[in-house]
């Protein structure tokens, strides 16, 4: 079979057949390092046989027993062969979702392409000398890229809606229950089912998906469980894209018609100085209460502060455009390098995908329920539909609140009211991330 395959390829290549014995070929492959040093002459037939064996088709059909993973560990034949094919198909599914369905294409396209490239046999693009490996080392291993993205997101964020209705920040806190509830779920799965064996670090990294915040997920995964980075990032961005599908049924199930029609009072005007001071205020609080959250909150506050200062527009524009775009490309490719079959095609990935879905759902529910609890106290009432926006997934979740609200009352514009919990959710997730860093530091 092996010899047949080689012959077939040779025939195709129009340069005649060759009767290289498989054992010869094998020997040639075994010692490439030596060959490189002292170049030895080969017959054209030998060269063709070597070529045939350097094709991707051959590498997938007949996995090389000496091949190591990008991390330098041994791999199963499945992960060397058909596993790669499956992962390339997974990349195609991500492309389809990103392009045809509009699922967070800015990150899923680069991640998917990185995943495609990292599963190419022979080329070792995700290895230490491949360009994906170089990119990963340059900006992901040191956690720099998600921090820069956070600066850019900060420069794009408007805290006006939150400032005009501060108490909605609590909704963004409640939604973090998605994180910690999932953490319990993940360790329970490990302890009671025996199917999985997540450590506390891994469980924490997985549960942060519930924060619905891409760069935070990537930051924490890189720190606590880099071996799960690929699956966590894919789950995180996929579910963020799925927010319009995941959230509405939960929101409707937990509210009654009267609640859904609650009108919220017009937001008060927020002065320029309030917006300017706010990022510093949040950062100072983070310093006082939880310094471990300050790399994330500090980067976010930096971007927001540059924007709101109004005096460095060229830096703020660069953060929001050239810089965030460049880093997005490399972040995506670097994350994709962790979609290699041997790291992604494992049972854990299924658990991560399932737990991520749970995390989103629990977070959504917690936000809605928190709004209902707050309505039990005296004061102006909150439409519980904006509670779901507390998961973050800015600005998608806020739009979902608005859309569901308008289904029940055409004139009830909830968008700006939902932006408050939405951005508070980003801060809440960063705080939750800080708690985890603090626990495991």
């Amino acid at each position: 079979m092996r010899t047949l395959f080689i012959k077939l390829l040779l025939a195709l290549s129009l340069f005649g057949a060759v009767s290289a014995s498989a054992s010869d070929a094998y020997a040639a492959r075994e010692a490439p390092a030596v060959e490189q040093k002292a170049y030895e002459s080969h017959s054209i037939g030998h060269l063709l046989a070597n070529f045939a064996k350097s094709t991707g088709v051959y590498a997938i059909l007949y996995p090389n027993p000496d091949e190591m993973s990008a991390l330098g560990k041994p791999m199963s034949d499945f992960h060397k062969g058909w596993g790669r094919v499956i992962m390339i198909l997974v990349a195609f599914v991500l492309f389809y979702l990103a392009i045809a369905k509009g699922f967070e294409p800015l990150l899923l396209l680069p991640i998917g392409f990185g995943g495609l490239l990292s599963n190419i046999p022979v080329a070792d693009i995700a290895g230490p000398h491949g360009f994906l490996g170089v990119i990963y080392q340059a900006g992901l291993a040191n956690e720099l890229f998600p921090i820069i993205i956070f600066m850019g997101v900060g420069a794009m964020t408007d805290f006006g809606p939150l400032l005009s209705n501060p108490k909605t920040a609590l909704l963004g806190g409640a939604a973090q229950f998605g994180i910690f509830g999932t953490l319990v779920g993940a360790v329970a799965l490990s302890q009671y089912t025996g199917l999985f064996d997540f450590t506390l670090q891994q469980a924490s990294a997985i549960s942060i998906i519930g924060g619905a915040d891409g760069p935070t997920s990537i930051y924490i995964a890189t720190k606590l469980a880099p071996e799960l980075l690929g699956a966590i990032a894919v789950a995180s961005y996929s579910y963020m894209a799925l927010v319009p599908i995941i959230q509405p049924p939960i929101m409707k199930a937990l509210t009654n018609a009267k609640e859904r029609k609650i009108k919220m009072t017009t937001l008060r005007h927020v002065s320029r100085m309030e917006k300017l001071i706010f990022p510093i205020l949040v950062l100072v609080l983070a310093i006082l209460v939880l310094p471990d959250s300050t790399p994330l909150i500090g980067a976010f506050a930096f971007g927001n502060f540059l924007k709101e200062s109004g005096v460095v527009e060229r830096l703020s524009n660069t953060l929001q455009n050239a810089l965030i775009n460049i880093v997005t490309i490399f972040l995506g490719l670097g994350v994709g390098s962790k979609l290699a079959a041997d790291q992604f095609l494992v049972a854990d990935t299924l658990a991560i995908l399932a737990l991520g879905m749970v995390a989103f759902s629990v977070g959504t529910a917690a936000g809605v329920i928190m709004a209902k609890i707050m309505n039990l106290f005296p004061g102006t009432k909150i439409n519980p539909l904006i509670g779901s926006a507390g998961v973050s997934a800015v600005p998608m979740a806020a739009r979902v609140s608005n859309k569901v609200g308008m289904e029940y009352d055409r004139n009830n514009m909830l968008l700006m009211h939902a932006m408050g919990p939405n951005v508070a959710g980003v801060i809440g997730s960063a705080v939750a991330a800080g708690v985890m860093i603090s626990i495991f530091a």
Partner: protein
Amino acid sequence: MEVNLVAEGLKFMVLGMGIVFLFLTLMILAMNVMSKIIHRYFPEPHAAESGKSALAAADKLKKVAAIAAAIHHHNTK
């Protein structure tokens, strides 16, 4: 000693949610204090800047249109 992971997870949850709410509660308090201070001691001159820039854009468009009209007028004379 075997660690009961679920118990640990529950403790993390209590701790984590506690800190998240502590943080956000402090933030809400601080925001309210800040707003009051700013509105009392640094009141804004009233005109929102968003209105201003919209005005500026309209001005620019008007100017372009005026030039266009002038040239048009000149050409059709």
